[in-house]
């Protein structure tokens, strides 16, 4: 709710000498900057709804307020600009002038100028030396234009409209002489009225006086309406005077109503607090949480009933306190959203594009410092979306898209995190071009490029030095931006991800922790050390009997993999990865595994003991430990022990789950030839051995032979409610003895279960690749391959003393894609899923 500034300041003027003028200026600055932010937004909205009187009224009031106050405080330069702007706005509001691009530009410029001067006042306590004669001149010129047009423009406007057809705005707009306070009051009463069951007469609430009188039960709404009608008909007297004349109130009652204090509203129930104070409070509460944790631990070791009861009380109060302090720092993301329409307008105008901004979830809350921290990255992504994403109107037309592009920004909470998605419906990113660019800049090597998934390639845009924009504009395309975006987001513990479909658009997703203060984490022990795994990365904890683990954990050539719900996950032992020498703690007859996820990939970590989950306060680790790159910080636990927080993405890179950025960059720099691959070994039907890099395999599955169905001349299976193409791997390779498979293979296939790999053909298509026999997994280092003997094969090498053909999976998948395309059809409800073992 806007505050009637001028009025309050004027009241303050009476006792100015007792007041701290600095305080007034400070408050003026703060409120004005809030007003200006709203102004930006309203101007942009106004461009799409130039006839919106309510909007115009609101803009006018804001500028009027600024003008009034700065005149009072002696900021003449500011006053001159605001005054010129106000005059122009009043013409717009009266309908004497239609909003044009030119006017919108000048008005926005005015807002910028006001903002610049306000900033100057804030830092130097004076208006500064910058003059704006041209701006004032242009504001005045545009007013002049209105005068010429006045005759035709004035005829068709608001005056003809009845209060019923323009219920909200006409009376307010008519009340030229009313103070801003009166108008804001009017608005307030309107909403009050709207809520009540009584059929309200909107015009009744036109003024503060009317509202106050109605509220006091002195006057019926109908009487005020009558008075207003008289005013409209040309009665120049003020509302109070008319009402007295009509005999519905006494002069005394009018005076009482006029001096009526505003009822306390939401704004007055809130106070402004120094952010630093909150910061300090938060730190103290964090420490308190730690102390409480220790105390809980100590209390649990004794049998003191009194102590235990007290500690439990403390526990509860501390938790509540923490929750509440955190809440004080939460801010709706709309604070950020409100600043965006202006950016969209300026950037798109600059580039001659038409862009419509949609925001969703503005009331989603986020810690203030985090909100502050994502401001620049989000602005940058938005600029990028408009600059590189959305095409020029003509081009969009050619592509059959609406001329106006849409950028949709949505915020939501999920999984204890704050998510923000910025999606455009523009040209999308050409993964092939990103790849070529990355190759040409040496950011990745050829073999690496081959094993990268579509998504990994797209996310290369976050690497420094990679910009796919053909030309550098002043908006973006200098190849520094996206890197900075990612760095800034990661700095606050968040993640940035990009997804794009060529010609369809690009979506950048940010995932941010709700607060920096504490995070829930799972604590585990390996050797003698305690480690913390952030809950956000946690998928599942599994304990298996040593005996059973044989079946689930396979050690092939020293590489451990873990079968988890039909998936094969890389398995790492924390003890081995960290080279822990201490003896194993805990019961070793049970194998404990923690399944974690990062960037959509999962892997398992074997630990000695799974302890518990705790709220931990992340403390940064000394830069001297940075080179180890496996820890993201340290935390003091409830029992006073220190735990290292595991950097799960770093472990993933180590496990080869995701191609590491550092590894890529470094290998490129050194021109390293050796390639490390984890291979899935297959036995061909002809006795030959084949190998597929594991990263191309999403899952291993077995299907009942009966699950094989036919559709459009192709084999298909139902898998997870989708109909997927089932192709035999050997059919995709150039095969010399195909006959063998077709006769014998099919005969046996009728009885045996089908071994199959779930593979991703492209970003949107998944297929099932039938394979003859799965032999196991091997980790190999390849520096040289024997040349391939047939299409679909990259080359051959010796694995486990057998000659093995390494498949060229990109080629195989390309063939699969070319041969057939089964659209992802949803299997209707009630359909049984295939039997999956």
């Amino acid at each position, binding site marked *: 709710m806007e505050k009637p500034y001028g009025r309050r300041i004027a009241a303050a003027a009476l006792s100015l000498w007792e007041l701290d003028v600095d305080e007034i200026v400070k408050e003026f600055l703060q409120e004005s900057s809030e007003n200006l932010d709203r102004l930006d937004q309203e101007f942009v909205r106004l461009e799409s709804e130039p006839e919106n009187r309510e909007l115009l009224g609101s803009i006018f009031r804001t500028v009027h307020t600024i003008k009034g106050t700065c005149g009072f405080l002696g900021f003449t330069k500011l006053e001159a600009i605001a005054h010129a702007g106000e005059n122009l706005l009043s013409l717009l509001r009266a309908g004497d002038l239609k909003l044009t691009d030119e006017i919108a530009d000048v008005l926005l410029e005015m807002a910028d100028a006001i903002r610049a001067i306000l900033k100057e006042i804030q830092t130097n306590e004076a208006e500064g030396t910058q003059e704006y004669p041209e701006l004032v001149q242009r504001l005045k010129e545009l007013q002049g234009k209105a005068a010429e047009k006045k005759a035709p423009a004035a005829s068709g406007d608001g005056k003809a409209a009845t209060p019923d057809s323009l219920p909200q705005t006409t009376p307010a707009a008519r009340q030229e002489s009313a103070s801003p306070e009166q108008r804001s009051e009017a608005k307030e009463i309107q909403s009050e009225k709207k809520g009540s069951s009584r059929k309200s007469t909107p015009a009744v609430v036109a003024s503060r006086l009317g509202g106050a009188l109605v509220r006091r039960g002195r006057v019926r709404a109908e009487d005020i309406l009558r008075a207003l009608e008289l005013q409209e008909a040309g009665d120049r007297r003020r509302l109070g005077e008319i009402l007295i004349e009509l005999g519905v109130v006494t002069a005394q009652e009018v005076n009482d109503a006029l001096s009526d204090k505003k009822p306390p509203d939401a704004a007055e129930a809130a106070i402004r607090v120094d952010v630093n104070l909150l910061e300090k409070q938060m730190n103290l509460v964090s420490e308190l949480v730690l102390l409480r944790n220790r105390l809980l631990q100590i209390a649990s070791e004794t049998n003191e009933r009194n102590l235990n009861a007290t500690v439990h009380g403390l526990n509860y109060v501390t938790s509540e306190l923490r929750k509440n302090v955190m809440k004080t720092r939460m801010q709706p993301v709309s604070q950020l959203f409100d600043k965006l329409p202006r950016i969209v307008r300026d950037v798109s105008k600059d580039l001659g594009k038409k862009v419509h901004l949609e925001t969703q979830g503005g009331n989603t809350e986020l810690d203030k410092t985090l909100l502050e921290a994502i401001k620049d990255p989000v602005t940058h992504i938005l600029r990028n979306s408009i600059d590189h994403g959305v095409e020029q109107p003509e081009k969009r037309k050619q592509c059959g898209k609406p001329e106006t592009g849409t950028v949709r920004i949505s915020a939501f909470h999920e999984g204890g995190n704050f998510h923000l998605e910025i999606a455009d419906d523009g040209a999308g990113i050409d993964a092939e071009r990103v790849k070529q660019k990355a190759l040409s800049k040496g950011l990745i090597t050829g073999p690496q490029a081959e094993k990268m998934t579509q998504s990994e390639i797209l996310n290369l845009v976050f690497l420094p030095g990679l910009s796919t924009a053909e030309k550098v504009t002043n908006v973006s395309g200098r190849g520094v931006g996206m890197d900075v975006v990612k760095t800034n987001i990661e700095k606050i513990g968040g993640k940035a991800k990009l997804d794009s479909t060529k010609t369809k658009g690009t979506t950048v997703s940010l995932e941010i922790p709700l607060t920096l203060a504490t995070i829930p984490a799972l604590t585990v022990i390996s050797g003698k050390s305690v480690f913390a795994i952030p809950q956000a990365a946690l998928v599942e904890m599994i304990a298996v009997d040593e005996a059973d683990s044989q079946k689930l954990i396979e050690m092939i050539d020293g590489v451990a993999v873990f079968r988890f719900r039909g998936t094969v996950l890389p398995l790492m032992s924390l003890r081995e990865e960290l080279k822990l020498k201490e003896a194993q703690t805990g019961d070793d007859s049970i194998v404990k595994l923690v399944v974690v996820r990062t960037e959509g990939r999962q892997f398992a970590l074997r630990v000695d003991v799974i302890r518990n989950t705790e709220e931990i306060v992340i403390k940064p680790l*000394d830069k001297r430990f940075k080179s180890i790159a496996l820890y993201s910080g340290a935390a003091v636990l409830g029992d006073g022990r220190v735990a290292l927080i595991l950097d799960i993405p770093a472990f993933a890179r180590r496990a080869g789950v995701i191609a590491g950025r550092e590894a890529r960059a470094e290998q490129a720099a050194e021109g390293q030839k050796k390639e490390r691959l984890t291979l899935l070994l297959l036995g061909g039907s002809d006795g030959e051995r084949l190998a597929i890099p594991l990263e191309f395999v999403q899952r291993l599955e077995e299907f009942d032979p009966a699950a094989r169905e036919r559709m459009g001349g192709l084999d298909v299976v139902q898998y997870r409610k989708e109909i997927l193409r089932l192709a035999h791997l050997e059919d995709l390779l150039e095969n010399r003895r195909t006959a063998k498979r077709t006769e014998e293979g099919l005969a046996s296939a009728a009885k045996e279960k089908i071994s199959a790999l779930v593979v991703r053909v492209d970003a949107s298509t998944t297929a099932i690749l039938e394979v003859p026999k799965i032999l196991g997994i091997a980790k190999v280092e390849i520096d040289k391959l024997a040349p391939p003997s047939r299409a679909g094969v990259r080359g051959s090498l010796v694995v486990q003393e057998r000659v093995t053909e390494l498949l060229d999976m990109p080629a195989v998948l390309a063939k699969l894609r070319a041969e057939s395309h089964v659209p992802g059809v949803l299997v209707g409800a009630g359909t049984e899923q295939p039997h999956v073992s």
Partner: protein
Amino acid sequence: MSASQRYSTFLLNGICFGVHVEKVQEVLEFQDITPIPLSPPVLPGIINLRGQILTTIDLKTRLGISAAGANGQQMMMVIRTSEGPMNLLVDKIGAVLEVDPDLFEKPTETLKAGVRAVTMHVCKLESHLLLVLDTEKVIQLPAEAGSSPGSEQPRIEQGAR
């Protein structure tokens, strides 16, 4: 004659070292160090000092002094540095000595390179030598000591900020 200065002294393998008292935050009995796996021996780990996490530097390893000669439990000296408090692992804490700066001499060439690099002054006392350390230099680990044997790939610095 200039005013005398006070130095907190400690022993490393029987050799007496000192740091200016103003650089010393506190002296601690030995307490549990949480090791950081894969970190070099010069960094035995971190400690929890009243909720604050401090990096511990094994001063003997840092100065290249043989680890032998330590009898019993080592002690800790928390020093104030430009990077905040740091914890030094020493053999034994000695007295606070008042030293006349006139007695200060430049470290001689005969000192071991590792020690000389971080020694500000050498001071001949009646019974023994006192080596005054430059704490800021002590906490800057030489490249080879700072790099971890566990990390296979040297990290690429992400440009200056």
